[in-house]
């Protein structure tokens, strides 16, 4: 007697699926642990020379020493305050200019070429000039971060304003909404997704410029700490400083993620 399988004929071959990567729970932390573990093992066994790359445990000890002396708070306070001031000023100015370009013909034709000309300049090349203009202290560091974050924000903002659904604006006009209401209640929320994703780019630019700016004429700050460690060939401290930068970057991107979730909760 033939079984059910032959009665049903040839099974249809499955050829769907795939192309949908999903996060696998503990794999991320596991990779960290394995890499750091191998690195520690290599250092302990003498396979990695301490001068080339210190053992993770040594870098960790340098970090612990920073906590013990309280030095870490001075460095972090200096760096974070520069980052916050420079970045928020750059964002505020960038959003304002981006809206002007997005809304007014004169601003668009006058400013877009300027933005296009200044955007590709690595702002770190202007640091000596900023030192002449704003002094070797906080001014030049903040100006570097400000100018670095300004242009990507301008471009993200006016791109966002351009992409606001025109039918929504026409709807606002058809109900007699004031110009200011349309900008505030239709254009701004419509441009917000683009502005927030521009924030991610400007935040990482801000951190890069922060470290570079702190390598000139700064007593405190993560950049100054890393530079000093490098000059003294104290690679354990250097790694500790780099780890602090990584944590700083992760914290900023986590904060932006929170902001996105809050402001864009109307999206699916």
């Amino acid at each position: 007697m033939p079984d059910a399988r032959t009665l049903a004929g040839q099974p249809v071959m499955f050829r769907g699926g795939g192309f949908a990567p999903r996060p696998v729970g503990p794999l991320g932390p596991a990779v960290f642990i394995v890499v750091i573990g191998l690195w520690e093992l290599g250092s302990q066994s003498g396979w990695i020379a301490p001068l080339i790359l210190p053992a993770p445990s040594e870098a960790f000890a340098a970090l612990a020493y920073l906590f013990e002396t309280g030095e870490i708070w001075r460095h972090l306070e200096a760096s974070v305050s520069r980052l916050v001031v420079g970045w928020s000023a750059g964002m505020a100015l960038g959003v304002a200019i981006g809206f002007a370009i997005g809304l007014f013909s004169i601003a668009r034709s006058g400013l877009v070429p300027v933005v296009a000309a200044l955007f590709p300049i690595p702002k770190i090349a202007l640091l000596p000039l900023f030192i002449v203009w704003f002094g070797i202290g906080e001014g030049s560091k903040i100006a570097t971060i400000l100018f670095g974050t300004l242009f990507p924000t301008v471009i993200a903002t006016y791109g966002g304003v351009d992409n606001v659904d025109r039918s929504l604006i026409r709807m606002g006009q058809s109900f007699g909404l004031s110009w200011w209401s349309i900008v505030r209640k239709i254009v701004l929320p419509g441009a917000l997704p683009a502005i927030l994703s521009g924030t991610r780019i400007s935040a990482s630019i801000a951190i890069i410029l922060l470290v570079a700016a702190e390598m000139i004429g700064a007593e405190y700050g993560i950049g100054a700490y890393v530079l000093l460690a490098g000059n003294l060939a104290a690679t354990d401290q250097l790694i500790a400083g780099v780890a602090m930068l990584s944590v700083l970057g992760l914290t900023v991107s986590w904060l932006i993620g929170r902001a996105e979730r809050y402001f864009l909760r109307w999206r699916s």
Partner: protein
Amino acid sequence: MDLHIEGLNHRYGDMPVLDGIDLRIESGRIVCLIGPSGCGKSTLLRLIGGLEQPTDGVIGQIGEPPDGCLNPLTYIFQDFALLPWRTARGNISLVLEDHDLSERETGRIVDDVLARTDLSDFGNAFPRQLSGGMKQRVAIARALAVNPAVLLMDEPLSALDGQTRALLMDDLIGLWTREPFTAVYVTHNLQEAVRLGHKIVVLSRRPGRIRDQVTIDMPLENRPDAVSELADIQSHLWELLREEAQAADRELADA
């Protein structure tokens, strides 16, 4: 309030879109505009509501809008035009916020129009949570909130599936029979036109001219029982439109 259109011409650059339109829109009646695609019926609607300026001719309001009217000429759009970042309530209150209304008054109007469109349970839903039919109901509620003198509807049911369209058609008829409103209803669906229109204006292909105006005196609530009579009118309209539609279709293919 009546609307009066006289000698209306409109062109985009060198291309004439509308040519010599004379039309009267009477208070409490629904005027349906039908015509082949690209004949300028949506353009005419935008001109009537002041979203575009005519090249030539006048569009006049005769008489005063009703008391408590916040926005005499109010649109209902094909694509709903709801703000995705606002709930149904928020979308309705949006059009009230620029007027000097107390919070209580705003709340009262929003509750009232939500109830009239059967949306009372959906006030706090975001547009993405609503089906197409519900979205258009929110847009209708928003239009009713400003107590308009004339509703300008640009193919309001075209983005919906057939069943939802039938449901919303019943809703519109229910709203009108309870409280007659004035409307200009643009559609390419002849069935909708004969079901809803007191006057049906047939436009020719581009440049749009008025080919004919058909008046249907039958009350809206009697129309479901007069299927054969309406079918006659519908086939008459189709006779008028057929050649135009064919020519317009070919025009597009050539371009």
